[in-house]
């Protein structure tokens, strides 16, 4: 079957098998910035924004995304670069495999939550696992980033 996706502002028709998951369709279409770390919606590295809201693309049927707007981290390159300054500044970007998914979820959180507490930040991002950093450095980076965005 075919579906139409607008990925990072570009509309394209994709040939898919009916049961295909969005992450696989995106990766084979060349959007390799979307990572895959599990197949059970448990790790968050496959996060993309669907119409602006974060979803786990490994457990989202590609067919369901037909006609929707998808944003990957490369669609938010400027914001991601800004955020990366803070993450890298804390040394909290280790293997980096979780980083694109984390960055996207932070973008979404920034829109959704006003001046979140540490607990709220942790809760919002709980689905984004990281095995390298121990999370503390990420939290330091996220707080400084949010602070800087508030100006």
């Amino acid at each position, binding site marked *: 079957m075919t579906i139409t996706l607008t990925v990072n502002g570009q509309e394209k028709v994709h040939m898919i*098998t009916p049961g295909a998951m969005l992450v*696989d369709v995106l*990766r*084979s279409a060349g959007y*390799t*910035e*979307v*990572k*895959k*770390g*599990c*197949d*059970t919606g*448990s*790790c968050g*590295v496959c996060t993309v924004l669907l119409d602006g809201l974060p979803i786990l693309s490994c457990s989202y049927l590609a067919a369901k995304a037909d006609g929707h707007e998808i944003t*990957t*981290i*490369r669609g938010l*390159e400027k914001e*991601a*670069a800004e*955020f*990366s*300054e803070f*993450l*890298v*500044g*804390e*040394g*909290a*970007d*280790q*293997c*980096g*495999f*979780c*980083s*694109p998914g984390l*960055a996207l979820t932070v973008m979404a959180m920034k829109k959704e939550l006003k001046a979140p507490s540490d607990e709220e930040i*942790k*809760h919002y*991002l*709980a*689905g*984004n*696992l*990281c*095995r*390298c*950093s*121990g*999370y*503390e*450095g*990420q*939290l330091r980076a996220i707080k400084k980033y949010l602070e800087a965005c508030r100006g």
Partner: protein
Amino acid sequence: MDKHFNEVGKARPKIDGKGLVTGRPAYTDDLACGDALVVKIIRSPHAHARIVSVDMSDAQKVSGFVLALSSKDVKRIPFTRAGQGHPEPSPHDKFILDEYVRYVGDEVAIVAAIDEESAAEAARLVKVEYEVLDAVLDFEEAMDNPTVIHPEPEIHDMFPIGFEPKRNIAAAYAMEIGDVEKVLEASEVRIKASYHTQAQAHVALEPHTAYTYLDLHGRLNVITSTQNPFHTRRLLGQALDMPLRNIRIQKPRIGGGFGAKQHLHVEPYAALVTLKTGKPAKVVLSRKEVFEATFSRHQMRIDVGIGATRDGHIRAIDMHVLSNTGAYGEHALTVFMVGGSKTLPLYNKVEAVRFGGQIVYTNKVPAGAYRGYGAIQGNFALESAIDELAAKLGMDPVELRKKNMIAEGQTSEVFKIMGEGGEGVEMIVESCKLDYCVKRGCRLIDWLPSRLAYEVAPGRIRAKGMAIAMQGSGIPLIDMGSANLELQDDGFFKLHMGATDLGTGSDTILAQIAAEELGVDSDDIIVYASDTDHTPYDVGAYASSTTYVSGNAVIRAAQNMKKELCAAAAAKFSVDTDQVEFDGKELRTKDGSRTITLKELSFDVLYHDGLNMKTINASGSFSGEKSPPPYMAGFVEVEIDVETGKVDVLDYVAVVDCGTPINPQLARIQVEGGLLQGIGMALYEDVQYTENGHLRTNNLMHYKIPSREDVKKLTVEFAESYEPSGPFGAKSVGEIGIDTPLAAIANAIYNATGARIRELPLTPPKVLAAIREAAQS
């Protein structure tokens, strides 16, 4: 000692950080070409079986099918998947494809097809008939079990490691200093207890991936998520019976390692397909496969005996270990030995010490290298036992440790006797700030021996516990790293190294080290690493070696580069080389009469000097004659719900002596990351099986790793310390963070409730049962 640094000790951002966050193609699967054949591995559903037949006829009908291979199509060569020095201290007991399967997930056959769907479909249609055999699942019953897991005649060890496959023993070892029985007997106070540590899964977020193709010379190119490209080349060549010159291994960015990728799990299968078809091929494991068919941590039972005087002088330590290596013996002996060699020297004032045991085969997921590498298991047992001793003596556990622990300028006979798989090396500990770490940790956690536990609400107890730890820095006299530096026009340098950055930032750290030694900015160092065709040899990233071993190699290369630069300038100035100085920007004669900038020199030697034009390069190699241990004191504050047995970590304080932290931010993250993996293992991470040997925890829903909500706070500080043999005073920091949480948390639970739990993980049911039992006695 010169402690004024320009580049070292600075929080330089990781050079690849921005690219990774913004999602540039970086990992193996991102780099694989679109038309790479997709390889799927058919895996055993049985814990132990003989393959009677493999029928590929239906699979071959799938459109897009390209190739299927079973053991009949592959040369039968025993090899080891363990990435270790040569000869490997692991038995050669694995075949790429074999007639027997020895655990659920073992490789049976492979198929290759033009895309994911057809490969998956073809794999589904491969029909395998098995003769199911009895399985050995309990490692305490493995030795001399009537079921022999490895009866095949051609398997062997590379040198004596106590390998007795007929008895299901992959390796064995024993050592004794003094007469342990006698000293224990003569000791006023004795402790004797058995501790159990479970298998733990690494869960690097990027699943194991390899991509292979033939280049225009027909050479096999392997892009792979590996921790040790050079070992991979050697092992792959052996397994495929290929000359090493025909293989090139490249490591791109890798999505986490922790020891998981110190082995060959995927490379042979992609390579086979490429060699047979001439086409590019790739293997990307699913998460389920990563759990079921790569490695986990060795499960162990550790029996500890300690003898001490009534005033707390530890006289003898006895440690006997039974380790479960699963179906294959990778790292069997070495992980086991580290359990003693990196714990026993902590208490170096003993009169007698003994360490020994067996590493046995079972029909379970094989065990391999994992951060902490045996030290973490040994640490749980020893540091729990030390607290048991303190309780028996009625002493503050901190005081007991202070009295007995190793200090700067001291040694331990264990260093010399036990290495990794053989003898060790003699070593005086030239840097050890353990005393400071303990003192500072007490301050940070507010350690009051009389108030280690108190009730905060009915049924909720806050409590503190602690443990100390040591690790090593590389494997002395076995592991080696090298680096090449080359001057480029405009005065910057290429740094080529075999060292393997797993995401820890070692590329950045090694560039800082080169820049420091040369006196230039780290921006002027361009790093290219981990490509067996283009970078010099390096053992790879394991055994906490990169900063120490590869770092020292980089220093040597930089020192040689300075000599070359001075020689080139001296030739220009027509003076002797020793008359020229270099400060990172300029080369000048000592009398100051002639100067040339590095930039000018670089253009001169490459463009302007006619017959004297040349490339200025220099290299350096390093292998350690010692393995200076980093040390750490770990303190935890937990809150225990005595109604449910749930334990929450409120704060974990780590004070670490890793010598000079080359890059403090990155060093801190290493410790924080290690702590959290240790806390996960302490509290709930557990590889569990069904009765017939199926992995119950084969996805991230059932195997839980810590999320960011699981720990309230981590507090990490570094001691001021300087290791004379290290690059700018540095020791390693990659593993040490993971070691203490197991014992520290168990000790805190004891302090809170009087319940001593000797079996990990410390799950609520176990804690609750122990609390109830303690209340009764």
